[in-house]
């Protein structure tokens, strides 16, 4: 193992389920290694069964398969896995659209995912463009242990690989777990229905992660288009995320300067503080009383 047990993250992270591999990648090689919370894992496939174990032979780890991914939990594995009823709709396609390693805290990545203010600058010509940079007021709702960000709509030049052109796109972000977030986005062909884009962050270490993106989409002609579009978008975020300092997400409200457009990020940070998350973060500075 790479680290001492003292470096174990909080239970809210440790005992959760995390994506550690795409099934298609595993099928290709039969066995592969992956890293979760600095622990090296060995993933093997025998007949139809997938096994995940510590690479140093110190034991088997709870694992399961869902939505094209191998999920693992270093804890007891008794947490519920995230579930999306939309995945069962007959006209919907469930597509793993790519995994990209990013040298930053997974928490920074989630905050980036729920931030629309960067679209005109980082995803220019796709998710936004100048001069349409204004972020309309949006609402934040914390319910059932989740953060919901319900935005108005924003003008997007090319919202997806299938988008016919510029469109007003409605956005709802839902943070389910510290490392799992979903975007409900207006389908450009069926305005009453939504496409789902899921980001599942695999925490490799406090300052390294892998972005796994899953699409639950209604119409597509070629999976390659969706994959290359999402790869482009994540690829545009990667150099930004890798050049933020510090790499760990500062949770003290005074360490970075949010504006109203950052209400989603601010709510996410506060939600992490309430859950006692410190792995991959810089915890808030508290007044400490020394006794004796």
């Amino acid at each position: 193992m790479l680290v001492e047990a003292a470096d174990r993250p909080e239970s809210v992270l440790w005992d959760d389920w995390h994506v550690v591999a795409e099934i298609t990648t595993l099928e290709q090689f039969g066995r592969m290694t992956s890293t979760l919370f600095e622990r090296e894992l060995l993933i093997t496939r025998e007949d139809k069964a997938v096994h995940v174990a510590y690479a140093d032979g110190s034991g088997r780890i709870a694992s399961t398969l869902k939505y094209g991914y191998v999920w693992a939990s270093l804890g007891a594995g008794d947490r519920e896995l995230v579930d999306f009823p939309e995945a069962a709709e007959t006209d919907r396609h469930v597509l793993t659209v790519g995994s990209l390693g990013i040298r930053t805290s997974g928490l920074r990545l989630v905050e980036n995912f729920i931030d629309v203010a960067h679209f005109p600058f980082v995803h220019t010509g796709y998710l936004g463009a100048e001069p349409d940079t204004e972020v309309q007021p949006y609402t934040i709702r914390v319910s059932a242990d989740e953060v919901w960000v319900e935005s108005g709509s924003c003008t997007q030049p090319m919202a997806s690989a299938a988008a016919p052109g510029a469109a007003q796109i409605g956005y709802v972000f839902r943070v389910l777990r510290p490392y799992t977030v979903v975007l409900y986005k207006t389908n450009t062909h069926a305005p009453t229905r939504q496409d789902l884009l899921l980001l599942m962050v695999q925490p490799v270490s406090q300052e390294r992660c892998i972005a796994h993106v899953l699409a639950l989409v209604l119409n597509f002609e070629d999976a390659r288009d969706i994959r290359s579009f999402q790869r482009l978008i994540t690829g545009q975020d990667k150099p930004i995320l890798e050049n933020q300092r510090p790499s760990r997400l500062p949770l003290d409200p005074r360490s970075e300067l949010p504006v109203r457009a950052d209400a989603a990020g601010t709510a996410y940070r506060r939600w992490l503080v309430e859950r006692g998350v410190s792995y991959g973060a810089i915890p808030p500075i508290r007044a400490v009383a020394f006794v004796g």
Partner: protein
Amino acid sequence: MERTNVPAADGWVAAVRSAELVGRHVAIARLADTDIALWRDADGRVNAWENRCPHRGMRLSLGSNTGTTLICRYHGWRFDSGTGACSFIPAHPRQIAPKAAAVRTYASAEKYGFVWVGFAKATGQPDIADTVPESPLTFRSLTFHAPLAAVHDALMHETGAVALGATAIRVQLRFYDTELSAVYLVAAQSAFATLVHGFAAEAVPESARLPLLRAQAEHLKTLRKTIVAQDYALTGRA
């Protein structure tokens, strides 16, 4: 392993050659464990800023220099030349940016062909208390992975070395049949990394410039090898 702290940055520190701040380039320098973004505005004024956007910690060195402002690459926040104050937040185009939305700025100066960054107690202008040309021929700057004191010691063993304060050394360079006076400037990047700048302290004829620069670069690289070969981390010497 013994660890030493980087010497607290004090006074004027040479960061990059003035010639590196051309056009709309944004240069970076790491001095005293601090990342600094350097950029020249349309009026020729040099800005030395903490390389970190106050909004989301983005490195400003990836931003765009418009000639009057530096635009952050992440959310397009604009920071004014001179003050570092935020003058425009695109997410809220009709609002005045809060006062707190300002980049941390450092004093800057240009002298001896270099851009200098003013840390604590920097006053007046950088001055090495020696007679040197206004715009000298500058050498290529090199980072030595060794503590500043060790690099300073080694440079003091160069031919004709004379210390000009704690961070400048005048030496005699001899290449082929040319002999000339030169000055080295040392700047701590971290406890174990030192930036070595240098320039010719007298006029160099045009025809001698290229051979001199080549020979000097080779010489400095050789010197670096001998210094770095000593394992400071293990001996604990600093």
